[in-house]
């Protein structure tokens, strides 16, 4: 399996993640889809690191995992705050700013 094929798999993960963020209404699944976007980017970093025999891509993947951990912490905090106010995890219910 060549590197371009792996990069294509990364693209696919990225696009599926974006679709999940745009289309799903459950906030938990939106967060999981964001993790999918991170995973696609990380796969591409590692694939290009392998292609060029350069470790910077792997270091960036480590940073990416740290950022994903921070995103998970803040996202779950938001989820619990939303649930406390609205008693739902449906993102369509949080529409106060819509006026």
């Amino acid at each position, binding site marked *: *399996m060549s590197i371009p094929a792996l990069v294509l798999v990364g693209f696919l993960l990225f696009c599926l993640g974006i679709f999940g963020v745009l289309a799903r209404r459950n906030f938990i699944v939106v967060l999981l889809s964001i993790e999918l976007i991170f995973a696609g980017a990380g796969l591409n970093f590692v694939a290009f690191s*392998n292609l060029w025999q350069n470790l910077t891509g792997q270091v960036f993947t480590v940073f990416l995992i740290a950022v994903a951990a921070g995103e998970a912490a803040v996202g779950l905090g938001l989820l619990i705050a939303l649930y406390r106010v609205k008693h739902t995890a449906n993102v369509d219910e949080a529409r106060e700013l819509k006026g």
Partner: protein
Amino acid sequence: MTVFMILLAAVIVACALGVVFARSPITAAVSLLVGFLGLAVLYLALRAEFVAAVQVLVYAGGIMVLYLFGIMLVDNQVLRLTRQVHFQAWPAFVLVLALFLWMGHRLYHSEYAASPGGRPAVAATADAEASPQPAPAADNTRRVAKVLYGDFLYPFEAASILLLVAVVGGVFLAKKEV
């Protein structure tokens, strides 16, 4: 090895589809967990042993458990019975398909696809030009550490501050009375 990696990629993509289209968030989370484990195996095959270990420890072990706790705190039956997708799902699908096709087009016409089949993914053959002898698995961690604590020391410290702020922020948001 190629068959193995294609199989692995198929499993990962199937798990990603499971995340996006599963009805229950628990199913989505467990599907994502399996996908992350598959991704870790793919990283191992790509000779990124340290990243694979971090992927299993932090992602599969830490973040997914956090998500499962979040689901258990929040999930209810009513949520599963309502419609799962927005009215904007079809425009989003078209948009994402266009994005994917555009990125695939750019990849196809880039320099990486120019060589027949690109370079092989597994580094056992590519190592020959990079280093005289194939690097053992333990060497990857040492080399990653040299780059991480050398060139990327300040970003590393910034990442630690980011994590601290994110965790404090998460606790603050989830606290009873804000």
